[in-house]
């Protein structure tokens, strides 16, 4: 193993240890709550989101014709990732009646426009591919 790799592994371990000490400094109650959220994030990704994406991929290879596959996958990645990112604003969970300047956009309408544009682009691309006889 090269010197660079050893240095990186040792340095990373030290940085991580700083984090562990900082986390524990928050007291047992905060630490436990944080650990539940840390483990929960991995669990939700590995056992809910990822299998769902794999299942969608399998479904797409069976249902979507060859000429539509690339546009469908690209649209799903863009729309899925951006929608997940936008969950806190789409749900407006942090909105407060005393502060009308927070979360003050029409988020659902914005999402519909965004989704429409992404799907429109994907359909356009699929049509071009269909006319061109498919393939990459």
């Amino acid at each position, binding site marked *: 193993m090269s010197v660079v790799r050893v*240095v990186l592994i040792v340095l990373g371990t030290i940085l991580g240890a700083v*984090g562990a000490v900082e986390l524990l400094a928050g007291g047992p109650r905060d630490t436990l709550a944080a650990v539940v959220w840390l483990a929960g994030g991995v669990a939700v990704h590995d056992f809910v989101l990822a299998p769902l994406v794999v299942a969608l991929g399998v479904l797409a290879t069976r249902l979507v014709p060859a000429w539509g596959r690339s546009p469908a996958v690209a649209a799903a990645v863009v729309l899925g990732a951006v929608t997940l990112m936008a969950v806190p604003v789409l749900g407006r969970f942090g909105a407060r009646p005393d502060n009308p300047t927070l979360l*003050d956009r029409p988020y659902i309408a914005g999402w519909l426009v965004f989704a429409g544009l992404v799907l429109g682009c994907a359909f356009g691309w699929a049509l071009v591919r269909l006319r061109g006889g498919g393939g990459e």
Partner: protein
Amino acid sequence: MPELRLSVPREEDFSSRLRGPEVASRVGLWLGICFAVAFLTGLYSHLAQAAYPVLPLPVRPAWLYRVTQGVHVAAGTAAVPLLLVKLWTVYPKLFVRPPRQRRALLLHGLERGSLGVLVAGAVFQLATGLANASQWYPWTFSFRATHYAVAWLTIGALVVHIGVKLPAITRGLRTDVDDISRDVPGPAASPGLSRRGVLRTTWVAAGLAVLTTAGSSVPLLRRVSVFGVRSGDGPMGVPVNKSARAAGVTASALAVDYALTLSTGDEVRRLSRAELEQLPQRTAVLPIACVEGWSATGTWTGVRVRDLVTLVGGSPDHAVLVTSLQESGPFRQTRLPAGFVADEDTLLALRLDGEPLSVDHGYPCRLIAPNRPGVMQTKWVASLAVET
């Protein structure tokens, strides 16, 4: 159709030819850059919120914190699609069966452990950061302390991961993305997206994530940022982070007998708002940049803090303790370091955009200084105490 059976899959069961080190290393590189940028800007923000910062903080340029915190949130936002694609490329590795041999098993376990910390930390940082930007707190731990601690944990696990994977990363980056000889053999050699196509899609997703949210800090993007936490509108054209009602100060802020308490040691003076209006006024164009990432520019008018300090015989070379009318809250009291006190544009503002401050913007008076996190631009100021 093959017979369906329920069992834990093996690595070889995942047939997409798009997974693998060519895509993983390229997406990982940008993901690593985003995390490094978010870590450094986050450290700066943490430092800027300390009452006694370990390093002297720059007072100028006035827009520095606005930029670093906007970049912090943008880097985290761009990382969402990058992290999702990165995890997708390596997901089959989750099902690698551990080796039998003891030494190999130990190394395998250590690598898995560091990866577990990395994935948990990365998902945690993005999820809590995005929720915090919209002031959504579905957890019981302290956001600031925990987001800070997990940042160190995550960046540490990331550096270990780079150390462990360095040969694979350099090999992946040097290989032509679309070299078909690198394809994972399998039945899925279908006419879908190419590896280059996956990369392009990922960059587009990351770019759109930033574009649709950054309007909260970049006025030019306001109209396209359909998922921005704030439109930028508000009383006098500036949004409000915490309302007077939420802070529980409405009555005390609007009280007719309000007076600001100024003090240096034993020397104490009380000034009503009318008396503050009588003092020489200064107008400064300064940003208000919130820790949650949004920012806006305001034209503030009020009395220079250094003038108020000299009024009670204090020196602008000393720090000032600023206390709000708020009765509780972590930022009820903030410390304005000497460098900020001395600055010409550090004001006890009475007006915004020429109008008296609205109560949600801090009436009767608020602190506004260059290059300071929004939470430390104390509203509803009750007293200024010069440190001696």
